[in-house]
């Protein structure tokens, strides 16, 4: 009997002992992490949840009033709206770009160099990237890289005129046309001459080939005129003075009842002439293209484009992440599938659409969801790129949360509600992750 009791108790004591040892062991390895996670993550979630139902002072329970405020005040509403735009626009672009870059660079002889260039911005801070894009998006096309590019492209389609600042001189028989350019206020007919003086152009800004302006000479069958810079020190307005030069290359149109009947360009001395039938009355137009201003660029940092500018910066930073993940997925892809499709006569685009993309789909989803999570939390890029006066337009939840709580307003109630809203928006992505994790063990 004694042995039986002993036999019975010994394993139990042993079991308890082992449980204690296991507990100590687990505590030793896991304890520090659990304490920190509990104190710095779990406790704050509960605290912030509770705090979001109190007012700014923290003394009065206000229920859901802070949340109501988020969805009624314009400033916070814009933040919510912008966050939604970010989530809808940026993750798909990053995933698509990542897929394209990964596929195109996969067989590239200098693949690693290409990918290194795309990966590099991943290690750049939001601060440094923000500062850089502030430079790139500077308003003037003379200074900002983006607008310099916009201007050069725009000028391919619509070159600027040589005399963007020119205007009619006081004595010139000219009126400005709607949409640019000028038209004579008087009619001319065969044998007439017309003096079209312009001002508002720096003499040294005239083209190299510009010569001294010459008086036009009309034959009985023509109309002649001159376009010249009607300004010189001591000169008389409306007359060609010795120091005044002609304005070459101005497109001139001969008009008859609002119809263009002939076109020409002014010569080095600013002269032009048209052969006309005697008796016909004409007006003369100077075409807008000579006076078109250079493209002013896009107001990247203005209210309309600010979010797009920040998005471009973010896409620059994060596309590398998508290329890393998708690139690894491509390398582990079963090549036989693609080869089989090719053997069956599929074009490269068909292989891409019907084999590569479907097989990569789970990976693309991971990239998309991860990017959604990161985009929801975006803060520093917005804060640095958007000038202070533009921050209301570029606002996002994370920025508004900081501003409401620490950037002056000190409203911890509203700040807590904004933080909770962010958490709530992230929960679907969190569940996606947890489901994926359980599936793959």
């Amino acid at each position, binding site marked *: 009997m004694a042995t039986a009791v002993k036999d019975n108790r010994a394993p139990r004591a042993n079991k308890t002992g082992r449980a204690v040892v296991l507990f100590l*062991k687990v505590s030793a390895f896991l304890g520090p992490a659990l304490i920190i996670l509990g104190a710095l993550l779990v406790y704050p979630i509960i605290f912030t949840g509770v705090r979001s139902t109190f007012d700014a002072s923290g003394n009065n329970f206000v229920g859901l009033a802070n949340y109501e405020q988020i969805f009624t005040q314009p400033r916070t509403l814009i933040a919510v709206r912008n966050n939604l735009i970010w989530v809808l626009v940026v993750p798909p672009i990053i995933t698509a770009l990542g897929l394209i870059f990964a596929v195109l660079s996969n067989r590239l002889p200098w693949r690693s160099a290409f990918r290194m260039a795309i990966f*590099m911005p991943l*290690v750049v801070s939001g601060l*440094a990237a923000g500062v850089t894009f502030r430079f790139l998006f500077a308003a003037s096309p003379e200074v900002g890289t983006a607008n310099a590019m916009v201007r050069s492209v725009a000028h391919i389609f619509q070159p600027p005129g040589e005399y963007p600042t020119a205007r009619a001189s006081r004595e010139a028989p000219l009126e400005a046309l709607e949409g640019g350019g000028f038209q004579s206020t008087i009619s001319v007919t065969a044998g007439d001459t017309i003096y079209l003086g312009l001002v508002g152009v720096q003499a040294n800004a005239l083209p190299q080939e510009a010569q001294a302006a010459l008086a036009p000479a009309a034959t009985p069958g023509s109309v002649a005129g001159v376009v010249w810079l009607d300004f010189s020190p001591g000169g008389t307005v409306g007359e060609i003075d010795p120091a005044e030069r002609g304005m070459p290359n101005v497109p001139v149109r001969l008009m008859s009842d609002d119809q263009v009947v002939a076109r020409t360009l002014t010569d080095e001395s600013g002269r032009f002439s048209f052969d006309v039938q005697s008796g016909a009355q004409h007006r003369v137009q100077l075409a807008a293209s000579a006076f078109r201003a250079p493209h002013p660029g896009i107001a990247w940092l203005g209210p309309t484009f600010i979010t797009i500018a920040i998005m471009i910066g973010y896409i620059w930073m994060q596309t590398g992440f998508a290329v890393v993940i998708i690139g690894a997925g491509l390398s582990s892809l079963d090549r036989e599938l693609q080869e089989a499709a090719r053997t069956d006569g599929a074009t490269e685009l068909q292989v891409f659409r019907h084999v590569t993309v479907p097989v990569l789909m789970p990976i693309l989803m*991971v990239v998309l969801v991860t990017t959604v999570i990161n985009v929801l939390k975006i803060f520093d890029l917005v804060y640095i790129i958007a000038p202070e006066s533009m921050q209301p337009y570029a606002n996002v939840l994370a920025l508004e949360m*900081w501003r409401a709580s620490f950037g002056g307003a000190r409203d911890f109630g509203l*700040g807590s509600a904004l933080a*909770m809203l962010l*958490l709530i928006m992230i929960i679907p992505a969190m569940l996606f992750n947890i489901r994926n994790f359980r599936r793959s063990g």
Partner: protein
Amino acid sequence: MTRLARFVSTGAMQIVLMAIALFWLLPVFVLFIQSLRSSGEIANSGWWTALANPSSLMVDNYRALLENPDIIRSFWNTVYITVPTTILVVAIAAGAAYALSWIKFRGRDTLLLIVVGLLVVPLQIALIPLARLFGDLGLFGTIPGVVLFHVGFGLPFAIFLLRNFFVGVPRELFESARVDGANDLIIFARILIPLALPAIASLTIFQFLWVWNDLLIAMVFADPASAPLTAAIQRQTRAFGQNVDVIAPGAFLQMVVPLFVFFAFQRYFVQGILGGAVKG
């Protein structure tokens, strides 16, 4: 050669990809060029004009930067924040990841799922409560406070990354060590850690970069005396126009260290991204 390979290796495609790569490098290059120009030049002409006139580039901004006590102090603050955070995160996460992968106990799977859940918790959720808590503890505005916050929000990713690596280690290694009488501590320190060095390297790089580049936590939890570079430069950006000769070299200085880490340890960096993604 497949058709895709032929397509990609055609001249036109190579030129397109080359253009994309150069385009991607452009912003960093621009920041570098701007950091070598005076504030007047930055305000009045594009950086490309300096390429036509390289002698206009100068190191004066950097000389001024290195004599700026604020910037010097914040640089060292960045180091004092980043290094302890990284060490603490790696050490604490390694222990936790070991327990979560190789010690059997009840509730382990639940704990693991909680860690996966915490992975994506936005740090905004903790700013207000921890500002209060750290205030009570006298940590608000100090380097240890900033470090502690980073440790908290670095841990889920660190545990997740290391655990993913640890579970892949063959069981036989542990069994044979146990037969030889090794206990958990020995297995952990003598077998697992040496095996996991590549994963630990990835984690270290990630953690380092994350803390080095942080702006938000620094802005809330550091006061001017304990502020790292990011926060110090951010203060300058409030007067963007006037301070460009500090902002541009300051931002580049802030970026140089991560770039160095990237080029030196690119392989571990990429492995870290792959190991840290929650796979589908």
